[in-house]
């Protein structure tokens, strides 16, 4: 049995009340949406907040709206609801597929899109019971002063392991944040920072409220996920690629993201000069090799990093080939 630490549970119905609770309890409070990431982490004593502010009853965080070329998704929409929503499937099916590949059915019934965007980083040395972590003298991310993954050990490199952010980045989505002081929007592309201890720009007192995804009919997107089992497991690698196709079928712009590496998803660079209108096999191979050269999976997951390194160009190549046959709404396949 893994017991939860003691806390007081708040379940406000209005966003303003939730924000007020965060202000009142400061560092003692944590926001919980589906709880599928936070609750297990609390059982491992990675977080011991005195107050949990639940978002499950806040109406303002619900709903999926299709509004003049923009999909507007409430942060507390579950991954299951997202993956089944007809508008999402029609306009951003790669996002629906990424959501459908998270964990297992029971998790998707509770886990939310906002929670997935805010998912804590993961590491072999971190996602363990307190007993296990004690034995190793803890780690830099929690309670210790050394990272066991890298040789130097002065920087936390726990892995960004969420499925939906790479797709959201390729689709140029943005998140809306609210605090008692006001609201702001941040592109998902700029949301993550290279610090495994706290890898997002979420600030104290803020709640992620909505995710807005602009939909361009010329854009195709595809998504792939590498994992050991085809269910429940977190990704060992996640790849999202997107491209804009002209009416004659030629590619005008291409972009890609790989995650499951370090603390933030990697935006692939150096692709522009390789694409000249087509995505034939030679171009795909060149793009995949260039992606492989800039992604270095670390020993922050239980599997052999050499294998994950070798799989980067393989998965990027597969994602790109899927893109060729994908409809305007995108597609995905799993390894």
């Amino acid at each position, binding site marked *: *049995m*893994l*017991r*939860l*630490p*003691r*806390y*007081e*549970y708040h*379940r406000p119905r209005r966003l303003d009340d939730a924000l007020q609770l965060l202000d009142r309890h400061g560092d003692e409070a944590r926001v*919980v949406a589906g*709880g*599928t990431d936070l*609750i*297990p982490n609390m*059982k*491992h004593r990675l977080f011991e907040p005195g107050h*949990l502010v*639940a978002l*499950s009853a806040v109406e303002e965080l619900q709903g999926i709206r299709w509004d003049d070329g923009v999909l507007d998704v409430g942060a507390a929409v579950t991954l*299951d609801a997202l993956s089944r929503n007809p508008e999402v499937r029609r306009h951003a099916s790669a996002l629906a597929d990424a959501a459908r590949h998270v*964990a*297992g*059915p*029971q*998790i998707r*019934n*509770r886990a939310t899109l906002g929670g997935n965007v805010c998912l804590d980083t993961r590491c072999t040395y971190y996602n363990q019971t307190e007993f296990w972590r004690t034995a190793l003298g803890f780690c830099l991310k929690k309670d210790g002063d050394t990272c066991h993954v890298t040789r130097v050990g002065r920087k936390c490199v726990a892995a960004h392991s969420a499925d939906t952010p790479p797709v959201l980045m390729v689709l140029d989505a943005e998140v809306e944040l609210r605090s008692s002081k006001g609201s702001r929007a941040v592109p998902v592309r700029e949301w993550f920072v290279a610090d495994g201890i706290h890898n997002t720009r979420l600030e104290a007192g803020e709640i992620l409220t909505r995710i807005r995804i602009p939909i361009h009919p010329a854009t195709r997107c595809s998504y792939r996920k590498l994992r050991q089992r*085809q*269910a*429940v497991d977190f990704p060992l690698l996640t790849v999202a690629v997107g491209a804009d196709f002209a009416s004659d079928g030629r590619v005008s712009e291409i972009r890609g993201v790989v995650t499951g590496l370090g603390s933030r998803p990697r935006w692939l660079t150096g692709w522009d000069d390789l694409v000249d209108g087509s995505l034939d096999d030679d171009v795909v191979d060149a793009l995949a090799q260039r992606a492989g050269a800039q992604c270095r999976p670390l020993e922050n997951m239980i599997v052999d990093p050499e294998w994950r390194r070798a799989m980067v160009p393989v998965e990027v190549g597969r994602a790109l080939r899927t893109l060729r046959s994908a409809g305007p709404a995108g597609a995905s396949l799993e390894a």
Partner: protein
Amino acid sequence: MSPGSRIVRFRVNGDPVEVGVPEHHTLVEALRYALGLTGTKQGCDKGDCGACTVLVDGRPTLSCILPVHEAEDRDVITVEGLARGVEPHPLQDEFDRHGAAQCGFCTPGILCSAAALLDESPAPTREEIREALSGNLCRCTGYTKIFVAVEAAAARLRSAP
């Protein structure tokens, strides 16, 4: 009521319940320790294995990572609530006939996931069954007998709902 405790009201297997539980308990702790419903199993206790699966408003839910407050005013169905009176649910009967349970620890969770599937989809394909049960681990039998039992239960429910 001791400090740090709270009264939570919900329905379990159709009956309204009112339980006094420690504030930081999960639904599976309330079911097993406050209500004595030990059919729901506490396995990994961190959302990996699916043994604690119950239905919350009809959806398969991991009761080990659900703060008990989230069950407030909801309909919870556990494995004890699947039978219809003295008659076992067709799933339970077919699991028995096909030897789809060995040690039985995963069975209550699998029955709940399967019951939700059959409510939604009376004639699921093998692939849909695999998908619906993909969050439930079984370490004894392998899954083939389980899939066959779900198919047999689905066929029975279609012929005599």
